[in-house]
């Protein structure tokens, strides 16, 4: 079994993995970072979005071995356990951008990536378009869109 080494949420990890191990499996099962979710098997839902070297990817469509040597950030790594929430996390909470919470980690990770690419002033149309790869069944997206717009602005000061 090939060995993989990567940095996950700032911590170096090394493990031997079956090549067929998906990054999301590696995170959830090997590292017990269960905040990254699996909502589908066809790369449609985005519940599994994490950042690899600062860029949003679907960890259900990425092999763990492909992340060898990379820097991986998951929802658990956004804010210190006892510290304040990341501005985007706070915005989702403030604007009721979540109900069951299952899609939320992927939404938040995607939202932060949208800000990276599109900046801090996001209009509704842009946000809806950029959420193309994330499904939510609870909120109708209405409050997610509001949360991302607010979170993007809040990240400017952060």
């Amino acid at each position: 079994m090939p060995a993989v080494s990567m940095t996950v949420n700032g911590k170096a990890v090394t493990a031997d993995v079956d090549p067929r191990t998906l990054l999301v499996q590696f995170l959830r099962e090997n590292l017990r970072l269960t905040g990254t979710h699996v909502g589908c098997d066809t790369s449609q839902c985005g519940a599994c979005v994490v950042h690899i070297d600062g860029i949003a990817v679907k960890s259900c469509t990425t092999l763990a071995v492909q992340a060898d040597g990379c820097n991986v950030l998951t929802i658990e790594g956004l804010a210190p356990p006892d510290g304040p929430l990341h501005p985007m996390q706070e915005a989702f909470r403030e604007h009721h951008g979540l109900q069951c919470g299952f899609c939320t980690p992927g939404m938040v990770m995607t939202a932060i990536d949208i800000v990276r690419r599109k900046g801090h002033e996001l209009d509704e149309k842009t946000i809806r378009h950029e959420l193309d790869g994330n499904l939510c069944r609870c909120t109708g997206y209405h409050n997610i869109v509001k949360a991302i717009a607010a979170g993007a602005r809040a990240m400017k000061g952060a």
Partner: protein
Amino acid sequence: MYAFTYHRPTTVRQAGNLLAKDSEAKLLAGGHSIIPVMKLRLAKPSALIDLNRVEGLSGIELKGRSLVIGAMTRHVEVATSPVVREALPALAELAGMIGDPAVRHRGTLGGSLAHNDPNADYPAAVLGLGATIITNKRRIAADDFFKGLFETALEPDEIITKVSFPLAKKAAYQKFKQPASGFALVGVFVSKRGSDIRVAVTGAGANGVFRVKAFEEALKKRFSPKSIEGITIPPDGLNSDIHGSAEYRAHLIGVLARRALAAA
């Protein structure tokens, strides 16, 4: 997924050798075509040869009247490249319509072409611009490359290294999405480069991407939506599925072609 062996070559030559040695091996580019298929156990490669650490497969370069793009160039790079946006804006637009942002961060030009999904976007641009696919062995004209559903002219040990897109005077892509998958229910790419006029259609053909000769002929007089008004596309040979009948797809080809021409 079935078990497989994983290789991570650093040169095209190494990758080619690995591929030549094992007829059941597959190349891994962005992974966004092959990994989903493997997860559903619809493909059973003995090995995956990861191209992500291979030198020199990525990049965008303007060479004379052509735009040369490395096979491992991600969709997002094509979509946002100032070079592409300047030289061939229709190609950047098309790349920005593939999948979703996270998919565009990983998916590659070469991967998409080698997979040749009948609903993928890139084949429309490659055929619609008359691009040349460059492999570790040869150069293949777009017209000779696409051989049907998930079939290409690539030989078992052949690796796409780059694609050369001739710059068109006018070009545009119009996509009508299948709303569940985000793939093209129908996508139409039109281009004009001197007397070379091309109209390529993805999503609709029962055998994958194809050119619409009737439109191309009509457009020779004038490259305008008006020129193809009244020309109907027969539904024969078009896909019919739960998302749309062959008649509907045939109709959409006309609508999207006119819109593309208006935008070009």
